[in-house]
């Protein structure tokens, strides 16, 4: 199982959980598995063409997958996936 960290804006989809578990050998598989457990998650992360939205980052451990192999980045037991969207608040 892969541990996935869910950011605050997406927690309504995971019943408030900040950390969930999913199965998969790549980021794409883990997201697909998560979407089957928490429907709607995929649509928040991917655009119409199926690419990761440009204001949402996914990290495997500490690495941004856009600088690895994108959604096809391989995962192994013990890896931690974090979803980190841009946030703008400050005032």
């Amino acid at each position, binding site marked *: 199982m892969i541990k996935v960290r869910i950011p*605050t804006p997406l927690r309504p989809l995971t019943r408030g959980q900040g950390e969930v578990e999913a199965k998969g050998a790549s980021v794409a598989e883990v997201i697909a598995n998560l979407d089957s457990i928490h429907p709607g998650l995929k649509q928040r992360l991917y655009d119409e063409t199926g690419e990761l939205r440009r204001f949402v980052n996914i990290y495997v451990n500490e690495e941004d997958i856009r600088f690895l192999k994108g959604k096809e980045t391989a995962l192994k037991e013990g890896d931690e996936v974090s979803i980190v969207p841009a946030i703008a608040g*400050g005032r």
Partner: protein
Amino acid sequence: MSFTDAQIQRYSRHIILPEVGGKGQQKLSRAKALIIGAGGLGSPAGLYLAATGVGTLGLVDGDVVDLSNLQRQILHTTASVGASKVESGRRMLAALNPEITIKTYQENITAANILMFLAEYDIILDGSDNFSTRFLLNDACYFAKRTLISGSIFRFEGQLATIKAHEGYPCYRCLYPEPPPAGLVPNCQEAGVLGVLAGTIGVLQAAEAIKEILGIGETLADRLLIYDALEMKFRKVTRPKDPRCHLCGTHPTITDLSGDYTVSCAL
């Protein structure tokens, strides 16, 4: 420029630090920091930069103090409700440290005025509350070769990064290439935020700004710091420079500030 006895006493806990010393304190007193937004992040950052003795502080904010601000915007008091935020902030900072120069600008940052502001300051702290200003500041600081300390908060989460793209480090667009369209990521002040979270991130912005001025320590120039107040977790992730970045990549398409920076408020 030499310090008076009172200044030496005021800054003595800095001056005895080998990493700061008299020389470092001089650097701080010569530094000019511009704080965008005299609100949740700008308040704690401004208070500590003033206490620290950063010689010139600029405050930019077009708003007036509202009662709902006081839960987190500690530059302002109940008596300041209705007053301009920059004037309320100036009063508070001047009371804390009358030795420094405080300049106030009661307006919002735009593509038309930002470069004039940047020309007068060495380091910029982003405490704004919207993506338009964040992307505009990123681009303008790159063109003007200014270091930008970017902090942002939402509910219980904060993000912090030091942007020095003009020195070859990644910019904010390398991290997030485009702002979100309306409806996908909340970015309005109406979104809830834990008041003290603004303090945590704003104070960390001040710490990073002070280290940049002094040239000491590890920076966040190639990292993003993520703070989760509920889980009490700090995480640092890598933030590589993107060769495809539209601003600082090898084939830039953004070469001035004439682009469209409007992003609708999204909830």
